[in-house]
């Protein structure tokens, strides 16, 4: 007979009490695990969406000439004598060390052309990549994904007096205004956008690229290093990381995480309170028993050991079951809260943390009741006999 036999037998033969304690912890831990798993999936989903939400690396030709601001981004010089990048070199971007973190690559060619007698800034772009990258673009009209289509910025449409369906002659090409962007307040309000290769041909810049916007994102991935890796591949280009964009993305994710940590903290508090109240109740119920232990010679430390060992066992069971049930909840809930989301599988470090947390909480909540139990005056306890 050892002290742990007393703890185990108490838990084994007082199943109702143990189940109540375990359930209290289990609810807390399951909620935390489910919340953390769902938040993690949400963060991944947000990351994925943010990957498509604007670029965070810009590559422009190295140029000592004038610079032109576009979309709030200062890009390399755009002038009649400006240098260009070769479109054929672009696949090199996907060969850098951190290529896994590269999302969308949106190359563009820029040039000036007269439309209806007025000079207009033409931008040739991969329209599909551009629309994926610029999710804030809203437009009127319909895009048929044709090379002969133009998208006009709102200011450009007004200045050039063009409407959807109008035909625009650019060199030997006749292009149709398929869509007009709603005002964004950015540089795109004043530009005329067309298919990359068609505009390259119109501008006489076949195979040339004026700037490349790159969406790269990963949790804690080294954006600065990635810019260096790209710069190594393109010695004639200037590669700039837009740290603000990364910071904004991180902040969005941190916001979601902080919210879930807040909820988790609240649940932990309620869970611990439940264990504390139950343990205190248990001490009061077991006054007689503790009196007997003390009367037959158990020291205060022996009584504490019995009670704390029970708390550890309850914490272990609550932690393991809470983790399993929480993971199942996350598995069931994620597809409903995240469109197309799936549970990424058991998170074993989270499991370890959950079990440690459950045991610590159970111990912490039992510390005072156990101390109180051990300090019971045996004669007072025996008066209750």
């Amino acid at each position, binding site marked *: 007979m050892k002290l742990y036999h007393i703890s185990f037998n108490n838990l084994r033969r007082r199943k109702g009490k143990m189940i109540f304690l375990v359930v209290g912890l289990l609810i807390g831990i399951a909620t935390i695990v489910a919340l953390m798993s769902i938040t993690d999936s949400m963060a991944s989903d947000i990351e994925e969406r943010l990957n498509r939400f604007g670029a965070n690396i810009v590559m422009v030709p190295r140029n000592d000439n004038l610079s032109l601001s576009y979309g709030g981004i200062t890009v390399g010089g755009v002038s009649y004598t400006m240098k260009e990048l070769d479109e054929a070199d672009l696949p090199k971007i996907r060969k850098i060390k951190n290529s896994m973190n590269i999302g969308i690559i949106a190359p563009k060619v820029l040039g000036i052309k007269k439309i209806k007698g007025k000079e207009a800034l033409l931008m040739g772009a991969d329209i599909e990549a551009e629309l994926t990258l610029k999710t804030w673009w809203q437009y009127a009209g319909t895009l048929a994904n044709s090379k002969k289509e133009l998208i006009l910025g709102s200011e450009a449409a007004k200045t050039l007096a063009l409407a959807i369906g109008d035909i625009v002659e650019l060199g030997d090409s006749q292009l149709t205004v398929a869509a007009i962007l709603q005002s964004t307040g950015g540089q795109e309000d004043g530009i005329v956008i067309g298919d990359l290769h068609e505009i390259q041909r119109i501008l006489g810049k076949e195979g040339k690229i004026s700037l490349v916007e790159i969406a790269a994102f990963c949790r804690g991935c080294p954006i600065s290093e990635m810019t260096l890796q790209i710069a190594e591949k393109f010695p004639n280009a200037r590669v700039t990381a837009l740290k603000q964009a990364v910071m904004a993305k991180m902040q969005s994710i941190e916001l979601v995480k902080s919210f879930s940590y807040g909820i988790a903290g609240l649940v932990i508090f309620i869970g611990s309170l439940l264990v504390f109240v139950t343990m205190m109740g248990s001490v009061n119920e077991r006054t007689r028993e503790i009196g007997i232990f003390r009367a037959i*010679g158990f020291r205060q430390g022996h009584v504490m050991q019995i009670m704390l060992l029970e708390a550890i066992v309850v914490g272990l069971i609550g932690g393991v079951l809470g983790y399993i049930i929480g993971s199942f909840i996350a598995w069931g809930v994620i597809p409903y809260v995240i469109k197309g989301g799936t549970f990424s599988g058991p998170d074993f470090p989270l499991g370890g943390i959950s079990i440690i947390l459950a045991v610590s909480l159970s111990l912490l909540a039992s510390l005072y009741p156990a101390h109180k139990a051990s300090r019971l005056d045996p004669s007072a306890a025996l008066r209750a006999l």
Partner: protein
Amino acid sequence: MIIPQNLIEIKDVGKDYLDGDTLVSAIAKMDISIDDGEFVGIMGQSGSGKSTLLSILGGLNQPTRGRVVVDTLDIYELSSEQRADFRSEYIGIIFQSFQLIPYLTVKENIKLPMAITGLKAKTQEEMALNVLNKVGLENKANRLPDQLSGGEQERVAIARAIVNNPPILLADEPTGNLDSKTAGEVISLLKQLNKEGQTIIMVTHNPEMCRHSGRTIHVKDGRLSS
């Protein structure tokens, strides 16, 4: 080596309680000496102070005044934890209403005092079986207390009290909840233990039970009455 004349000496012991604002004296003043191997009955009416006296003897209840010396040890000079060790080594207590741990089997209840002794499992098993045989419950070792009769529970309580071979056995109304036949069996068992050398101090309000003790101390209103 100095051998103490008396195993237990109670000198000028008194115990007062506060009942609200009123000071109540449970034990006014008592001087008692008990020799090794004695079977002493403490008799008195309900509220006479006999149970308080027993708890003071067991190192469970600090007296307001006086000294309790057991085997040269002034037990209330010891710290609370030292007194717990003293109880483990010197005292076996048979509680009124048995006071068995409901979630432990008969054998586990009997082994309970050994849980803190560091004795090996095999030794514990042998000692538990030995006392189970002594109280005649060897075939009910794995039962839970609520599966036993009152008399059987009392015998388990006795077995638990004697398993560590304590020199002093304190019994608080050991026959109070038993029918006369079972009470007789329990008294026989206590007499047998006393014959084997155990010092027994039994509290009872039943004069019939005190007939079996070697000496009877009468307590009335917190004082020795004879």
